């Protein structure tokens, strides 16, 4: 079981952060700095134990794969941004990373979005029950009108495009409203959990 002093410190941190709800104040500022401190420390610790130790130290030193020295050298080049004369080397690494991400974006385009196109192929009329047809038709119209809203270079004097884009925007707003509403439960549940922690774990009130 969690010892009480850990719970008490947790409760203190909880209340310290909630003090922002009144207004920004020295207590919040203190806990904000503590949080950034422990988070940076945890990030550092996590990278050592979960990335650098298993993925770099082990292959290089334990398994003797000497070429793992190169990732270190490349990583070290990032530190040259502070040198005016050698900064171009840091840039070289950065742009290579950008190139790498650009290349993986092409893969993402096909593997991430082509299945969406495929799954939009639904019969909008036919032998299926009317409820399913209505749903399919609604999906089709939503998809096409929303996409038409995002045409930038076609002058919106074109009647068809204007009308379609306006319907698209309405449907978009409906979708955004639904997303907003659907996240409420999760956020409220989190807050309820914090209150339950304060009431039942810290103050030890009967449940």
């Amino acid at each position, binding site marked *: *079981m*969690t010892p009480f002093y850990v719970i008490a410190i947790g409760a203190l941190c909880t209340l310290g952060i*909630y003090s922002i*709800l*009144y*207004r920004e104040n020295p207590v919040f500022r203190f806990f904000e700095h503590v949080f950034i401190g422990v988070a940076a420390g945890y990030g550092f610790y996590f990278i050592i134990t*979960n990335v650098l130790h298993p993925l770099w130290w082990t292959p290089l030193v334990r398994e003797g794969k000497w070429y793992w020295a190169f990732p270190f050298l490349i990583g070290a080049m990032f530190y040259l941004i502070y040198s005016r004369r050698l900064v171009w080397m840091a840039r070289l690494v950065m742009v290579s990373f950008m190139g790498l991400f650009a290349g993986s974006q092409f893969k993402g385009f096909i593997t991430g979005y082509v299945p969406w196109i495929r799954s939009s192929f639904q019969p909008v009329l036919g032998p299926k029950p009317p409820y399913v047809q209505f749903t399919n038709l609604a999906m089709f119209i939503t998809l096409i009108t929303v996409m038409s809203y995002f045409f930038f270079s076609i002058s919106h004097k074109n009647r068809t495009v204007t009308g379609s884009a306006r319907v698209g925007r309405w449907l978009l707003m409906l979708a955004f409203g639904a997303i907003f509403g*659907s*996240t*409420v*439960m*999760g956020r*409220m*549940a*989190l*807050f*309820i*959990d*914090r*209150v*339950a922690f304060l*009431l*039942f774990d810290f103050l030890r*009130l009967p*449940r």
Partner: protein
Amino acid sequence: MTPVSGERARHLIYALLGLGTAAGLLIHVRQPVVVTPPTRSLRDSIQALPRNKLVILSIGWDVGTRGENGPQTEALIEDFFRSKIKFAIFSFASPPGPTMAEQIADRLARKHHKTYGEDWVNWGYRTGGVPMLMGLAKNIPRIVPQDLYHTPISKIPVMRGIRDVHDIAMVIEITGSASLDPWVGFWQGVYGTKLGYAPTGVMVPEAFPYLHAGQITGLQKGLVGAAEYERLVGVRGDATRRMTALSYDHVLVIALIILGNWLAIRAARRRQEPEGQAP
């Protein structure tokens, strides 16, 4: 701008939310919980499990989403203890997850007079992602040589005869992040293992395709899903107890929207009147 605006309105809203939620946790108003089909089919498929096999309770959450996933876990463990289903707590996605689930199991075990090692086991967190899960299907003792308390698996009674995926009756993923796919791809898809799913409310829409495709046998939809499940089990657990506060919070937000609009309309009318009289 509305008449009640700025900092004072904000403080009032925050106080209503904070104090109301606390009150909702302390004072229980009985809520009419309506059980929806996905929850019912999850419970039915759990009830139909053979009792000589193990259920894996996969914990994909940490304190960030404990508000929803915690009560979901509690409802499931409650059902397991009552139905005499043996289970293993496990995680491949959240390092602190198994410890947090263990606290829940521990608390319920005292109520039901269950013993660790005989009625459940905690495999702890294992790194290695998908390749590890693939290995787990083939040889459980190799991936999990010891439990959370560093006891060798061979010395734990409930693990007797548990060798591979065929000794696992079902896997239930309880999660606040996208950690269902590895089970679907490498357990359910390959061995036909039954899968249950308990995601947070935000992730529910993405879960329906899996349900329709039969990849998961049932679904607990966030905190409400946990309350529905508790109703099926016939217990008033954390989820049910939190329904009062949750309903209050939702009704409060809806009431705030209505109030905001009403005040805005009134303010707009007032502004128009003097303008009409001015020269």
